[in-house]
Structure formats: C-alpha cells, structure tokens
C-alpha cells in the first residue's frame, strides 16, 4: 500500500503555498513514496529515553544589548521589490470588496 497519495500531496502543496501541475503531483507522489519508505528505517529505533537534539553545539542563546543599531533605509528595503507604491510593497487586494485596489 502506498504511503502517500496524490490527494495528500495536493493538500500539502496548498499548505506550502506551492502551485503544482497534475504531472508534478503524480511524479512527486511516486518519489515521496520511495523516500518515505526509506525514511521509515528510523522507526525501528527505540528513542523513548532520548532527549531531542535541536542544535549540534550546546549554547546559551545570548541576549544582545538593547541598543539602536544600523538598519536599512526605506529605499534600500524597497530596491528589490517586484512592485511598490510610494513607501510600501504592493500586493493584490487582500480583503475583497473593500476600499481602493
């Protein structure tokens, strides 16, 4: 029995904000099924008493001094924007039917 089906891949792609074509969904389903089958090998290990390891080297997350540092100017921050309006990034209307587009 396959570990993942095309409908699940479609749902995950929506969660990941990734528009995929039907051919891509089918190919990914097949590939992910193989990869997940291999990844299952870790399930054989008993890890009940093992603490999760989130970082390779133990460290105290340091707090920096709360001082004003350098930051980008508005022009620098907007320089790479695909679309801008005045001092803002421009995106399609978010709330339908309100205000000006």
């Amino acid at each position, binding site marked *: 029995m396959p570990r993942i089906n095309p409908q699940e891949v479609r749902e995950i792609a929506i969660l990941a904000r*990734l528009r995929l074509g039907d051919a891509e969904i089918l190919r990914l389903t097949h590939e992910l099924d*193989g*990869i997940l089958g291999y990844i299952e*090998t*870790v399930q054989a290990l008993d*890890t009940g008493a093992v603490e999760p*390891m989130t970082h*390779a080297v133990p460290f105290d997350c340091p707090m920096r001094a709360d001082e004003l540092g350098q930051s980008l100017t508005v022009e620098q921050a907007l320089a790479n924007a695909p679309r801008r309006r005045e001092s803002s990034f421009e995106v399609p209307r978010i709330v339908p039917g309100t205000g000006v587009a």
Partner: protein
Amino acid sequence: MASHVRGLPLVAQAEGVAAGQWKSRDLVEAYLDRIARLDKRIGAFLLVDVEGARRKADIIDKRIAAGESLGPLAGVPVGLKDIFVTKGIETTAGSKILKGFVPPYESTATARLEAAGAVSLGKLNLDEFAMGSSNENSAYHPVRNPWDLERVPGGSSGGSAAAVAASLCAGTLGTDTGGSIRQPASLCGVVGVKPTYGRVSRYGVIAFASSLDHPGPFGRTVEDAAALLEVIAGHDPMDSTSIPQPAGRYRQASRAGLSGMRLGVPKEYFQAGMDAEVEAAVRAALDELGRLGARLVPVSLPHTKYAIATYYLICTAEASSNLARYDGVRYGHRTAEASSLEELYGKTRGEGFGAESKRRIVLGTYVLRAGYYEAYYGKALRVRRLIADDFVAAFQQCDALVTPTSPTPAFKLGERASDPLQMYLADIYTVAPPLAGVPALSQCCGFTKSGLPIGLQTIGPALGEEAVFRVAGAYEAATDWHRRLPEDPA
C-alpha cells in the same frame, strides 16, 4: 604571469603579493583570462565581476606600493558560492526565484575575506538553495568536472570545487549541510573543510537548513584551506549560534605532523556499496598515515545506518520553513498575473522553484504536519542525538576519524538525476558529521584508473579543527596527489 597561476597555491600567491614579487592586478588578469577561455566548458561561475575585481586589485596594489601592511590574503583572487549575499552584487542561490536580487548587505564570511585583502572574482554556481549532490539542480546551468567534462563536480558547492580544481581562482568559499563542501572536494580532487557548527558565521548565508548549515573554505592545498578558514572563522554577534571563540591556528596545525595521534577507523564506513578503487585508495591512505606515526584504532559509530534518513527528515523540515520567505512580495521573482494574495504566493513559488526544491518543501511540510510531527521530525531529533553521541564515544578512543568521503568517484551528468533516493543514499559518509556538528575535511588520496580523483575524509571532535588539519597536512606533505592538475579543456 598568466601561465603561472595554474596550480599555484593561494598561500604562495599571498606571499608573492606581500613581497612585491607580483601585483594583485596581474593575478586577477591571469584568472580572468583563464575564466574567459575555459569556463564556457566548465560552468563554474554564475557571475564574473570583472570591473569590481580589477578595481579592488588596483587599490590593493597602490596600498602595498605605499608601504601599507595589509591583511593575510592581500591581493589573492577568490570565488564565492552564490549563496553568500554580497552587497550590490546579484545573489541568486542558483534559483530563478532570486534572479535579479541585489542584496543591500554583505555576509560576515565574505566581509572578512575582503577585510583580509582577498579580491572576489565573482559568484559560483551551485545546486538551487544548496540542495543537491551533483550541481545539476542549478536553475542556470550545470557545472562540469574539470577531470572529465562528461561528469558532475559533485554538489551542492560544485562551482566552488570545480573553480579551484581548474585554477579559475586561488580559493573559494562554499557551504556544507550534508556534505556540500566535502563531496565536491572529493569528486574534484581539492581540499574542502566543513568546520565545527558555529565556527564560521551564517550571517548573510542564504538559509537551507539552519541547524545544519556550515560555511567553509576550498583550497588547492591543506594550508590554503587553513589560511582561508583562519580569516573567516571566529565569533560574530550577528549570528546567535556563532561560537564565542576566536579562530584557531590552522596553518600551524597543518605543519605540526601527526606523530602519536590515534586515528579511529569506523567499521560502518567500510561496508558493501563502496567502489573497489575508492576502497583501495582509502585503505592505502590509512597505511600511509600509519607509516607517518599515527596509531590506527578500530572504532564503531553504530547509528551510521540511520544518518541519511535522519538527515533528510531534519533538512527538509528546516528547508520548508526557511524557503517560506520567498513569496514574490519583497524581492525576487513575482508571477505576472495574480488576483489574490494566495494566488500570488502559489504561482510565484510554483514558477520560481526547481524540482528538487519543490520535492524538499513538500517532504518537509509533510513531516512537520500536525499529527506526523512526533513520528517524523521529533523522532529524527532524537536519533540525531544518538548519532552525535556515537561521535562523542568514538573520540574517547581516538583523536580523529579517517574515512572515505564519497562511496564513488564522480558520476556522469544525468546518471542519477531521475532517482532522487539514489542521489540521497550516496551521501552516506558525509551526512553524520553535520548532524553531530563536528569538523571534517576532504582531500585527494588517489585517482581511479580512468583518472578521477578519490577523497579521504578526516573527522575531528567538536572544536577540534587543529586535529583535522594535523592529519590532513601530514598526509599531504607525504604524498603528491594534490600536485596533479586536470588538463585545461580545449
């Protein structure tokens, strides 16, 4: 001059410039000439900054002529994997989704190189977002192995390895998440170093898997790589995971010899599936290390067989999160037509990412999904600790480990491209050190009958880069594999 940069070590170039023997501008011109003639065939560069390199070299030359004392890499031409953001210079991470992105800031590692006097020749090709083992996932063009143009250079830092092998620059920077410095170093016959996690700042390195990403250097020789690492290593307040310690004296360590060292040989790294010529070359290297005064100790890393599954669970989870930032709003590609924000995101990302990035985003989203998190990602974090504990236990019996870097020499373009799982399984010897965060280096230890380089990997304990450089430096001093150069392509 132009003919002399082929195979000329970085350290020798730095000494020549400092002594007034050579001008930085002459070195830059020699490499620009090689790039213009040869890189059409190799494809190592994504961007060559001709004018910037000339301008910076001339400034270095003027300051040297004025008697100023400059940094340890003054005037040396280098190349940068296109995952380091460079202020005012396009940075793409090998992805269409970042085409045209001109960063407003500079990564710490590249800023330190420049402060040490190095001159960047440009940005080097890579697998998209550093995801891949062959450089075939670049959205722009593949890189070809200078030893055989029909074969891959390895990945993801394929451009960085090929550029050093083909003498297109004196040294380069790359990043290693599951082997992306060491495996291409092995396949291209150069030296590549993945330092301890946190030794080199990740500030300004475009993120793939943040708990696993390690910037590091490539050099023609062990000392070249050591000289680059001495400059880029050390604490950086801009990276909260940066180790608060200064860089070590890696060049000195590379000349210290290995007499009295105990070198562990993990039995799990010498099992079925390894190419016979790779095994023979690595075993011969172990014998050589024994003759040089090391004591070889059999050790075991019992969780090795879980490393690839653990690595791909963690790296895809982190990648799906890190790649969420590419939304077509603030920089990079944006789809032409979208009537809602959801459509803008979905179409932009569907158009902008390549197949491997999509595969990893979907797999990472899947393993982090509510209901699956504990069974996959949570499990992987626990197995990661077992893998790291294996190294801690092994280093109670030895000072460093010696293993192959890659189970095979360079493979042909297209040979593994249709089977992602087979591509992942070839990372068997390189994925565990980043999971444990320990330093590791690959260097050339021989060639196949058909003339392809074979890599030897030395792994040290956390913060033990000096032990790694002692082993690698002593091996290199006793052998001459590193002196072989690929023929320039016609």
